[in-house]
């Protein structure tokens, strides 16, 4: 197991951002975290890469508990545990050339001499299909798609075991996005790096990941193999979410499940199921205790008490 997370909790003051999340990522696996704004998906990305401290729970990376590892001991591990952010303009130092941005992690984490660093930088640029001439440029001279390639190259520089990708294609245009997805696909095949893919875009998650976790207000409401979960969503929230997606095909039939209102505030979370206030099939006992995960077959489970009586499926 590359990454094992259990009982992860994060509070920002009185905001309950992540409320007891368990998951694991095996070597070479691509795990998706999907959810809407406020679901805690990006917070989880920052927690597992130790960019922010957890309030409770444990994070194990390659078997080692890194939850409270001192920064000095964490630093060598960072070479193997990388993150790529949504906004490539904000992720790169505007005063550093692309070459320096790519060289920096090599200086920090490897003992390579100047010449081999330079060779490695060229190799990385070629790998992400960045023109070699752009190495001497500054971030403001490149397009968004090219900058995201730089971010990916920088994450790859130290040969990581796991890369967390937080909405890596959300700020990019469609055709540029396809190029980045293709690049990620190639990199996974070549290097066997495991990825955590955070996105609100269901179609992209379906394309990229092997396994997926659906988050709602800091809780995992459903998880499973991507194909199984998209084919048979069990949690009412997952069903609602999938039914709201609009496939780019005018002949696709939409079976939309209406929801009540919008995601409530994460400040005063109710004791029971977080989705109960918007759920069309909620019953009074949904509001009493947090529903446990109900197994639904191989590696597929959903946290809904109405599954037992088969009342979880939404109609209309």
């Amino acid at each position, binding site marked *: 197991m590359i990454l094992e997370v259990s009982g992860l909790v994060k509070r920002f003051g009185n905001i309950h951002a992540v409320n007891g999340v368990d998951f694991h990522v095996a070597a070479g696996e691509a795990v998706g975290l999907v959810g*809407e*704004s406020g679901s805690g998906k990006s917070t989880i990305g920052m927690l597992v890469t130790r960019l922010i401290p957890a309030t409770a729970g444990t994070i194990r990376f390659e078997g080692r508990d890194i939850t409270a590892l001192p920064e000095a001991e964490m630093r060598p591990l960072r070479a193997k545990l990388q993150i790529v952010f949504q906004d490539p303009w904000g992720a790169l130092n505007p005063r550093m050339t692309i070459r320096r941005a790519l060289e920096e992690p090599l200086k920090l984490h490897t003992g390579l001499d100047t010449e081999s660093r330079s060779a490695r930088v060229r190799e990385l640029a070629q790998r992400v299909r960045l023109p070699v001439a752009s190495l001497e440029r500054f971030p403001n001279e490149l*397009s968004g*798609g090219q900058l995201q390639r730089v971010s990916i190259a920088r994450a790859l520089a130290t040969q990581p075991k796991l890369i967390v990708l937080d909405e890596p294609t959300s700020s990019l*245009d*469609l*055709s*540029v*996005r*396809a*190029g980045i*997805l*293709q690049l990620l*696909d190639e990199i996974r095949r070549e290097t066997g790096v495991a990825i955590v893919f955070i996105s*609100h*875009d*269901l*179609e*992209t998650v*379906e*394309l990229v990941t092997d396994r997926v976790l659906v988050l709602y207000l800091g809780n995992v409401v459903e998880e499973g193999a991507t194909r199984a979960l998209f084919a048979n969503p069990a949690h009412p929230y997952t069903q*609602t*979410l999938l039914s*709201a*997606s*609009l*496939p*780019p*095909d*005018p*002949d*696709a039939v*939409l079976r*939309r499940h*209406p*929801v009540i209102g*919008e*995601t409530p505030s994460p400040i005063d979370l109710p004791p029971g199921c977080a989705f109960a206030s918007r759920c069309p099939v909620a019953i009074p006992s949904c509001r009493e205790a947090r529903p446990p995960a109900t197994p639904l077959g191989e590696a597929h489970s959903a946290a809904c008490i109405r599954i037992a009586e088969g009342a979880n499926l939404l109609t209309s």
Partner: protein
Amino acid sequence: MSLLSVEDLHVHFASRGMDNQLRVARALNGVSFEVEEGEVLGLVGETGAGKSLTALALLGLLQPPAVVAGGSIRFDGEPLSPRVRGTRLTMIPQSPHTSLDPLTRIGDQIVRMQREHASVSKKQAWERAREMLAEVRIPAPEERLRAWPHELSGGMAQRVLIAMALVNRPRLVIADEPTTGLDVTVQAEVLDTLRELVRAHGMSAILITHDLGIVAHYCDRVAVMFAGVIAEQGPVRAVFREQRHPYTRSLIASTPKRIAERGFREMGGTPPDLYALPEGCLYRDRCVRAADICVQPPPNMAFPGKHTALCHFAAEI
């Protein structure tokens, strides 16, 4: 006669560089399209294709250095007059929270919108504002009229903007990425509300988006923009089924669903430099079909059902 007809619209940005040389960015390069009565037209394209700029030009909201350098816009058969704007032609802007005045209650903003364009009493306008909030399905409209913008969720704020755009009963409403910042579950509901109102009042709409899913399910016709021209336009079904322009083809092939079905297709390149547009077809540097003839300006080829494509090879694709 079409409700709106835009013909050969050109918009340029003129600026002086550091060397004091005048530089002109040709942002719209001959945009022509029509919107019929009761029709929803989707305007799609990537960043910088000129979608929002087209909307701003229609609404007369272009600011220097942007200037209309040519072309005509006719509304209801007449050259578009400023009186039409804000009443018969209105806009739903993109980001709900920056588009509402943070220091004015919702009700007062909707009242102002009406009194700016017609002589109605405050009381009448307030009553109409309440009706409008109910129409866009805001619960407890009476109370919401007294709410401040920051008290609204993203979805509610977007509904208020729809109410403001429709309060003067326009004949054409332009919605610029009306759901971009919203969650998927909320997005669908807001689009449903918009579509229902447009239908119920027999209005027409231009829906600007980069999301092909929205086009597929909420528009009747679609116009695909690239580098300030409309590369292809036609009925949504026809365009999704038979793309006639290589750009439309590559856009649709880039959606995750198509990638899952057919794998990755090579596509590359960046949009052309608007300061130094090439002669001939503007897409040719990125085009897989590009040939020698593409240095000539491409013809706008017509296909059945008002389906057109700006490409030398449109008939063969």
